[in-house]
C-alpha cells in the first residue's frame, strides 16, 4: 500500500441552477488573456447537449482517454508511444478552434467614428484573432438550456441505448427535461494528458494531486489536448502552450477555496482530501467497464483505519492533512454514502471529481398524465424518472445502471425521511421501509440532509494545509523568495522570441 493524498471534489447536480457564476469567476481570474479567450477551464453544460467543445464525449471523433487492448494493456487512444513519432508533426486527433468557437468582440469604435448616414451605426462583431468581421457560428454555452436542440441535444453521445420513445419524451413540448453539468479538470489519478505529453511538461503534484502544465517545458506538441477525454486541456493559440485548470492552487495554498467553488451560488460544490492507494492504480484502470466504478471507489482509503494512518505517515503525509482527510465531505459523499459517482469512468483516467446524479425533476414520466402525489408514491419511482436512468448511467456508470440507481434511491429515501420528519403527511413506517430499501439508516439520511442543505462554507470546503512553505525552503532561501514572489515572468508570456 502506498498512501497518497488528493484534493478531490464533489458536485451535487440537483443543486446546480446553471447560473454560470463559476465560469465567469474562473474566466476573470485566469483566462481573460490573449490566446486564452476561448478557454473555459470551468464551464457549465446543459444535458442533454453536446457540450464544449462540441461532442467532446464522442471518443470515436476525438480519441480521448485510454483503451484496453486485447492483450490487457492500457493504451492512449490518440497518440500512444508507438504513434507519437509519426504523428508529432500533425496530430490527427487534435480538435481545432471550430470545435470550440472563434472568440469575438464588437467594433465599438464604429459607434463613434461612423460617418453620418440615414441609419444608426452598429457595433459589428469582429474576430478576436484576426480582427476581421465574423459571422458568429458558435459561442460559449451555445446550446444553453436546450437552445438549438435538434442540432445539439439530440446529438448527445449519452443518448446511446435509449429507446426512441425515451428520446422523444426528452424533448417533447411540456415534458422536456434537462439538467446542468458543470465541469472543471478532474485532476485524474491516471491522467491521460500527463501520460501523453512527449515533453514531460505535464505532471501531477505529489502532495495534493493537482495536475499542472509546466509552461517552461511545454513545446506545443499538442498531445494533451487530443488525449484528455474531457477536453480540459486547451491550446493557447497565441503563446503556443497548452493550459488547463490549476484548481486555483495559489488560492488553495493560502487556505481559500478555488474561485469557482467559492463563487458557487447553488452551493453545489464540495472539496476535501481523499487518501488513495497509488500501488493499485494500474490494476483498477484495467478493470472491465462494469467494475470500474466500484474499483475506483476501492482505491479510496479509510482515513480512520490505523493501518492506513500508519502507511500515510510513512509516506510523509502530515497530521494536518490526515485530519483534513477525516473531515473531508468528499469522503462521505463518495465512499461512505456512495452517492457521488465519477464522470465517464470508461475513459479509464480515474477522475477525482465526483457528481451526485440529479433526481429532479421530481415529476415522473407518464405517457398521458402527471403522476398523483399521494402518500404511497410521493416521489416517483426512480426507474420512471424523466431523466432516463440509461442516460445517467452512460454519464456516471460507464453504461451500467447499478451505481446510479443506488445513488438516486438513497437520495429519494432522504427525501422521504425528511418529509416524514418535517411535513408529516407520510407515515414513518413507509419512510423507514424506503430508507431500508435504499440501504440507508436514519442517521445517515440525516447526515446527508445536513451536508446537502444546511452546509456552511467550512463544511463544504475542508482545505488541507498545502505546506508550500516547505517546498520554498527546499528550493531557495525563503527571504529571497519573499522578495521575488508574485512577479512571475520577467517578461510577459509572448509568442516565440
Amino acid at each position: 500500500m502506498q498512501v497518497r493524498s488528493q484534493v478531490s471534489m464533489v458536485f451535487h447536480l440537483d443543486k446546480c441552477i446553471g447560473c454560470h457564476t463559476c465560469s465567469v469567476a474562473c474566466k476573470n481570474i485566469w483566462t481573460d488573456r490573449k490566446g486564452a479567450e476561448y478557454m473555459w477551464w470551468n464551464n457549465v453544460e446543459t444535458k442533454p447537449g453536446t457540450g464544449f467543445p462540441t461532442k467532446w464525449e464522442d471518443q470515436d471523433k476525438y480519441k480521448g482517454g485510454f483503451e484496453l487492448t486485447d492483450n490487457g494493456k492500457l493504451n492512449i487512444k490518440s497518440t500512444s508511444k508507438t504513434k507519437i513519432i509519426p504523428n508529432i508533426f500533425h496530430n490527427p486527433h487534435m480538435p481545432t478552434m471550430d470545435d470550440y468557437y472563434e472568440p469575438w468582440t464588437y467594433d465599438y469604435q464604429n459607434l463613434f467614428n461612423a460617418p453620418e448616414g440615414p441609419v444608426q451605426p452598429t457595433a459589428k462583431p469582429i474576430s478576436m484573432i484576426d480582427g476581421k468581421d465574423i459571422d458568429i457560428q458558435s459561442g460559449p454555452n451555445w446550446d444553453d438550456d436546450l437552445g438549438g436542440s435538434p442540432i445539439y441535444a439530440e446529438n448527445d453521445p449519452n443518448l446511446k441505448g435509449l429507446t426512441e420513445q425515451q428520446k422523444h419524451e426528452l424533448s417533447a413540448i411540456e415534458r422536456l427535461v434537462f439538467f446542468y453539468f458543470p465541469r472543471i479538470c478532474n485532476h485524474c489519478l491516471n491522467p491521460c494528458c500527463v501520460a501523453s505529453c512527449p515533453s514531460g511538461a505535464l505532471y501531477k503534484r505529489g502532495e495534493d494531486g493537482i495536475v499542472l502544465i509546466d509552461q517552461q517545458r511545454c513545446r506545443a506538441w499538442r498531445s494533451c489536448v487530443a488525449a484528455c477525454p474531457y477536453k480540459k486541456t486547451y491550446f493557447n493559440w497565441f503563446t503556443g502552450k497548452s493550459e488547463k485548470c490549476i484548481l486555483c492552487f495559489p488560492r488553495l495554498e493560502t487556505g481559500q477555496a478555488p474561485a469557482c467553488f467559492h463563487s458557487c451560488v447553488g452551493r453545489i460544490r464540495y472539496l476535501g482530501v481523499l487518501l488513495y492507494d497509488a500501488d493499485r492504480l494500474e490494476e483498477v484502470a484495467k478493470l472491465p467497464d462494469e467494475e470500474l466504478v466500484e474499483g475506483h471507489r476501492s482505491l479510496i482509503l479509510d482515513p480512520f483505519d490505523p493501518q492506513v494512518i500508519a502507511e500515510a505517515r510513512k509516506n510523509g503525509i502530515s497530521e494536518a492533512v490526515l485530519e483534513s482527510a477525516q473531515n473531508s465531505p468528499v469522503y462521505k459523499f463518495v465512499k461512505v454514502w456512495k452517492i457521488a459517482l465519477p464522470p465517464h469512468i470508461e475513459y479509464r483516467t480515474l477522475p477525482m471529481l465526483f457528481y451526485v446524479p440529479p433526481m429532479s425533476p421530481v415529476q415522473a414520466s407518464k405517457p398521458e398524465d402527471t403522476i398523483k402525489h399521494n402518500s404511497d408514491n410521493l416521489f416517483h419511482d426512480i426507474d420512471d424518472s424523466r431523466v432516463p436512468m440509461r442516460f445517467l448511467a452512460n454519464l456516471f456508470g460507464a453504461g451500467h445502471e447499478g451505481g446510479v440507481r443506488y445513488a438516486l434511491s438513497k437520495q429519494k429515501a432522504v427525501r422521504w425521511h425528511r418529509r416524514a420528519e418535517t411535513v408529516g403527511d407520510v407515515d414513518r413506517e413507509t419512510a423507514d421501509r424506503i430508507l431500508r430499501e435504499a440501504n440507508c439508516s436514519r442517521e445517515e439520511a440525516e447526515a446527508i440532509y445536513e451536508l446537502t442543505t444546511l452546509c456552511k462554507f467550512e463544511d463544504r470546503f475542508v482545505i488541507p494545509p498545502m505546506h508550500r512553505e516547505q517546498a520554498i525552503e527546499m528550493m531557495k532561501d525563503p527571504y529571497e523568495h519573499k522578495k521575488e514572489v508574485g512577479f512571475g515572468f520577467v517578461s510577459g508570456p509572448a509568442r516565440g522570441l
Partner: protein
Amino acid sequence: MDPRVLDQFLFIALPYVCLFTFFLMTIYRYRTEKFSYSSLSSQFLENKQHFWAVVPFHYGILAVTLGHFIAFLVPRTVLAWNSHPLRLYILEISALAFGLLTLIGLISIVMRRGSFSKIREVTTTTDWILFALLIVQTVFGISIAVIYPWGSSWFATVLSPYLWSIFLLNPDISYLAGSPLLVRSHIVLAFLIIGFFPFTRLVHLLVVPNPYLWRKVQVVRWYGNK
C-alpha cells in the same frame, strides 16, 4: 576586392561568426527565455492544409539534413557505399526526392500561412525571413543535385574535409578551390541559417521529446527529490 579576401571572409570568418552565434545564443535563450522554446504549432487554427504542408516539409528536411550530417561525419563510409553504382543511384535519387519533398512542403507552408488570415496573425517577420532563406537554400540544394550530380560522393571529398578543417579550428579553404558558384552559395547560406537559428522558431528542433519513449507513463513531482 581581392577574391581571396572575399573567400576568406565567406568561408572562414562567416562560418565562425555564425557557429559562435549559434552556440552562444541557443544556450543563452534556453537559460533566459525558456518559455519561448516551442514548436509554435498553428494546427489549432487550421487543421486541413496543415497536414499537407507540415508533414512533407518535416520528413523532407529531416532526411536531407541527416544525409548532410552523415556525409560530414563518416565520409569514407559514404564513399564505400557509393562504390557500387546501383547504391549510388539509390542514394542520389532518394536524396533528390527528399529535397523536392522539402520544397513542396515549404511552398505549401508559405501558401497556407499567407492565405489564412488567422494564421497570418501568428506569423512573425522572423518567420517570413526564415521561410525565404529555407526556400532559397532548398532550391540551391536541388539545383546542385541536378546540375552537379553524384554530390554524395564529391561532398565526401570536397566539403567534408573543409567542414572538418573548420571544426578542428584549422580552416583550409583550398578544398573549395574550383567549386562552382552554386555550391559556394549553398555553403554560405547554410552558415547564415545556422547563425539565424537561435533567433527563430527552429529552436524547437533542439527540444525534441526523446525521453518520452523510455520515461514512466505518469509524471509526479514532489517538493524535494522523492
